[in-house]
């Protein structure tokens, strides 16, 4: 039996790792990967807690999470592709077209 604290530590590490990827990488695809890593951290927490309390809800939640993540990833990948199609870049720093300047006055 692995103690709860071990799995929670791993989960926290995964979460922080994912967050670091999101914060540090500039490539949209890597940011998506970072998101996935964070999701995995969360799922691991759910599993560990479910095991700790002898409750199947954690596993149910994880399966849901996987399904939802897969769906979300499909949409997100299409968006990345579209961004590349239309804007010719997947560097997140280049995607600043919504940036507004207040010089223009009332619309």
């Amino acid at each position, binding site marked *: 039996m692995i103690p709860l604290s071990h799995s929670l530590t791993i989960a926290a590490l995964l979460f922080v790792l994912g967050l670091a990827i999101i914060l540090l990488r500039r490539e949209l695809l890597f940011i998506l990967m970072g998101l996935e890593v964070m999701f995995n951290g969360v799922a691991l927490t759910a599993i560990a807690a479910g095991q700790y309390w002898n409750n199947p809800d954690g596993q149910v939640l994880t399966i849901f999470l996987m399904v939802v993540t897969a769906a979300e990833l499909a949409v997100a990948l299409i968006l990345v592709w579209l961004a590349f199609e239309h804007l010719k870049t997947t560097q997140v720093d280049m995607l*600043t077209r919504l940036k507004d300047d207040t010089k223009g006055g*009332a619309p």
Partner: protein
Amino acid sequence: MSQFLWLIPGSPMLGALIIALLGGYLKQRHFSILASCAAAVAFLTVLLAWLMGAATSQPLQQTLYTWIGVGNWMPTIGFTLDRLALVMVSVVSSIGLLIHIYSITFMAGDSDQRRYYFFLNLFLAGMLLLILADNLLLLYLGWELVGLCSFALIGFWYRDPLRASAGRKAFITTRIGDLSLALGIFLLFNEFNELSVSVLLANATVQWETGSQMPILAALLILGGAIGKSAQLPLQIWLPDAMAGPSPVSALIHAATMVTAGVYLIARTYPLFELAPQVQWSVAAIGTLTIIYGASAALAQNDIKRVLAYSTISQVGYMFLALGCGANALALLHLTTHAFFKALLFLTAGTMIRTNDNEHNIHNLGKRGNHSSLIRWCFLIGAASLAGFPIITAGFYSKEAILTATWSAPTGPLLWAFAAFGSLLTAVYIFRVYFFVFQGSRSGSPMPPIPAPMTWSLSILALASLVVGFVEFPEGWPGLHLWSDWLRDELGSASHPTLATAYSLQFIACVLPLIGIGVALVLVRREKLGFELPLAAFLRTGWNFDALYQIILIRPYFTLARFFKNVEALLIEGTLQKMTRSGMTVATACRDGLEYGVLNKSITGLLAGLRLGHMRLSATQNGLLSRYALMISAGAVFLLGYWLW
């Protein structure tokens, strides 16, 4: 019967999903058929409910499943069909079906029917969901769905930037109201830990005292939501611009159904308003002001659809007036008749616009002449019903009843005087349009025949605009008084003035439309000779509300933004410069006395630190996604740390 309730909002939702997901396998012309079938199933289910005696039995209920279970709070996907909801679903599903059928030919030439019918079906589903929802959370879901569909359909022809911006304007303006409604729901949940409408209202009447602070706040927040959706003063500015959408959409969403969602919401939560008499009175006051506003602005419009838009604003004002006077059943009656005659007017206007190469101007429409007699008669019936032409039209019965009920409310005679003046103006503006468009129209080249689906929908609506009112004859008249008796248990009833007063009020209500038609005749003759109405420009812009909001809201916002930018520049850069200068002075002064290297180094270090801080600060608003992500996570960590500590 109860187990079929889900079909009412479910079948349009299913239709929308099929069109959205499997639309690739369908041909253009199949979308309209599919969408109409979905609407028809909803309508037939409602019809079935009537046949099974839903009108006389206890409210029907169906709980599909528990939506969210958090502790002992379990909002459900559940429907309740009581009498109020029964009236609403009947109106919405029947008019929705007719307009789907009308759209088959109206939108036949359009290349993007998939999007159109998806949103039309989704709208119908959202509206029916809003009506049938048995808890406020589900109601709010429907409320947002119809708002989204309204936005998408106003801007349906989005390649035209004007139309797209009209859609955005509607969305943003109604959002103010939606926010208020959401806050109201949060407040109620915070107080009662419960969102089921019936339980909530029962708790409120038991726990809250009449006129105390909580019900006033709750009622005000709900009223805010209703005002936004129903385009009442001061959030009415989006509705005239919403006419940029296709005409069937204007008829369905911006005349018959969605704009009356606010009326439904207030009628649904009326015990709250009875606990807050001041707010109830302000509902009446807002309604009265809006009647005058809408009617006077409609008087000077030249675009036929804008006349009808302002007319909708003003007619919904009558419903608010009735709600404010406690005559909820009569508000519902006017809602029903208005839905039919206004949908009729919009559809005839849409047909005219379509057959005359997108001509919206009433003067030009009149000059072109040769409108088919079906259109002419339908418009006349709609106009007469809107004006409240006595005895033969449905509009007369509902409007007269509201006027009479107003008299005995607090400050009734004043409200009555405004509302009666509004009803005079109503007859003037709508018959001004009628005379301009149809009077002296020459019979030129024969028009292309109107396709059958359009003819059917128009005829059914015209018939309904005449006969729906017969369910409730005026007070003291022989004939049926079904409506208010039937709804009395659920919605309460308003106090009536004495019979003698009622008769004189009824007489005035009969005479006003006739006078209005006469005035319209004179007005049209004068306008054809080139005389303008006094204040025409002011009225045409809707009392300059847009310009007013531009001045008091939008411009200050931009000024504020520019001000902060300047403050940032002045404060941070100015301080930096000053620090540099004083640092330099100090450095020169101390150069000989103190250790040169230490001081110089520390000052350069300080400067560099400040520069860095300035750069970092201004970088918070640089539009870089990763920077925002960093901010969000830092904020979350900070809050979490604060909360745990």
